[in-house]
């Protein structure tokens, strides 16, 4: 039972254009969402997060949108750069559970983003 899904295994965009990565979740207890970027042979690197009390969070070129009713979030990268080429993972947590959550993350399968010069 995949509680967090990234249905696009890969995405290819031109440098300077917008990249939109999508993520869907099924567990209504999830209330905190994160995006990680991963380069080959390295560990995932935290990119941006959003709490369920918000519908948008922005950090420089990166914006995450959350649609709770649709159980959907997306990461927008504008403008895309060749250095953004990596695997992007969305992850979810149920932090409102407090002590029983322990910050455990459930990850999607990842989307390979390729940005062409």
């Amino acid at each position, binding site marked *: 039972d995949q509680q967090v899904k990234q249905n696009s295994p890969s995405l290819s965009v031109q440098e300077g254009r917008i990249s939109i990565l999508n993520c869907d979740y099924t567990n209504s207890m999830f209330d905190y969402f994160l995006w990680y970027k991963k380069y080959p042979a390295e*560990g*995932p*690197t935290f990119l941006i997060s959003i709490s369920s009390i918000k519908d948008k969070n922005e950090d420089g070129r990166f914006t995450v949108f959350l649609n709770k009713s649709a159980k959907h979030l997306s990461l927008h990268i504008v403008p895309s750069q060749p250095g953004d080429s990596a695997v992007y*993972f969305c992850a979810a947590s149920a932090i409102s559970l407090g002590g029983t*959550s*322990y*910050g*455990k993350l459930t990850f999607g*399968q990842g989307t390979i983003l390729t940005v062409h010069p």
Partner: protein
Amino acid sequence: DAGITQSPRHKVTETGTPVTLRCHQTENHRYMYWYRQDPGHGLRLIHYSYGVKDTDKGEVSDGYSVSRSKTEDFLLTLESATSSQTSVYFCAISGGGGETQYFGPGTRLLVL
């Protein structure tokens, strides 16, 4: 970068042998996690720790055990390695249950 190291970084072993992977942190964070990454599955939680000697199972804990005798070290043991445990293993740390997790560089394990 968060101070997290993993050792070894690469290991080849044979089926049936025990293997221990080490995660070491210098951030004095309370929470530590072990994940495995496999194609088509993203990262899946194996075990986690919420304090010294306090550990619990994650999503894919069968065949794995963990120990945490001090804050800075979290050990993952494969008691008898199987080919299905060939994977990349990542350790992560966080300061609290609602805080961002930071990942180590990973250990690539091949079980022949």
